[in-house]
């Protein structure tokens, strides 16, 4: 399985070891980290909700599609679910190829697609005690919001 969802810390070293291949001349990795601010608010922590069956199948489809289209050797991706502190690794993508251009392009494509296609939601917790689902401001059509929502 090239797309994984985990509720424990992502072990990037173990993932890189899985990608070791003597045909590969390039490894490009992306890590998404929990940063201390988003859209002007101070963030203290984050919780990811993941619908695993479809997150995995969509992720596999993305990796299959990108690695078919771009000449790479292999690719892996892992996304966290659950609660993460500041600095925590939320997502990791690694791609190996013979030459670096393909690994850079494929890694970028995979993380871009993961962010828009996988059924994953994040709730941010703020310094002021408030919290909110990211990206949900467009859903506030009825004005009966109980949560803070904002663009991210």
């Amino acid at each position, binding site marked *: 399985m090239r797309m994984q969802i985990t509720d424990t810390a992502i072990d990037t070293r173990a993932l890189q070891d899985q990608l070791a291949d003597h045909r590969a001349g390039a490894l490009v990795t992306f890590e998404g980290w929990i940063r201390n601010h988003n859209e002007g608010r101070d963030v203290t922590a984050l919780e990811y909700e993941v619908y695993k069956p479809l997150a995995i199948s969509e992720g596999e489809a993305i990796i299959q599609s990108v690695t078919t289209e771009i000449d790479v050797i292999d690719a892996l991706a892992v996304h966290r679910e659950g609660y993460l502190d500041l600095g925590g690794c939320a997502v990791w993508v690694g791609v190996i190829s013979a030459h670096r251009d393909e690994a850079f392009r494929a890694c970028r494509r995979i*993380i871009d697609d993961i962010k828009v296609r996988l059924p994953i939601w994040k709730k941010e917790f703020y310094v002021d005690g408030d919290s909110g689902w990211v990206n949900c401001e467009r*859903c506030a059509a009825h004005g009966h919001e109980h949560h803070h929502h904002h663009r*991210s």
Partner: protein
Amino acid sequence: MKKITVRYFALFRDRAGCAEEIIETQAATTLDLFTALKDRHGTDDPRGHCKVAINDVMADWDTPISTGDVVLLFPPVAGG
């Protein structure tokens, strides 16, 4: 009337106050169903930012629904 299992995620679950419910509906498509449930999930038009799946397969907003389907309503995703 069709008997449909609806599952709400993230913000939609918070608003609906439940993760899953079984409803009876005359809705023909996923969009009809979404609109019929707007007092539950709180959103007028899902097109362009919300997603829907039927029986664990991604669907479109004009996909027909049938009795027995499990319809998953996804607010805007925010992975990564």
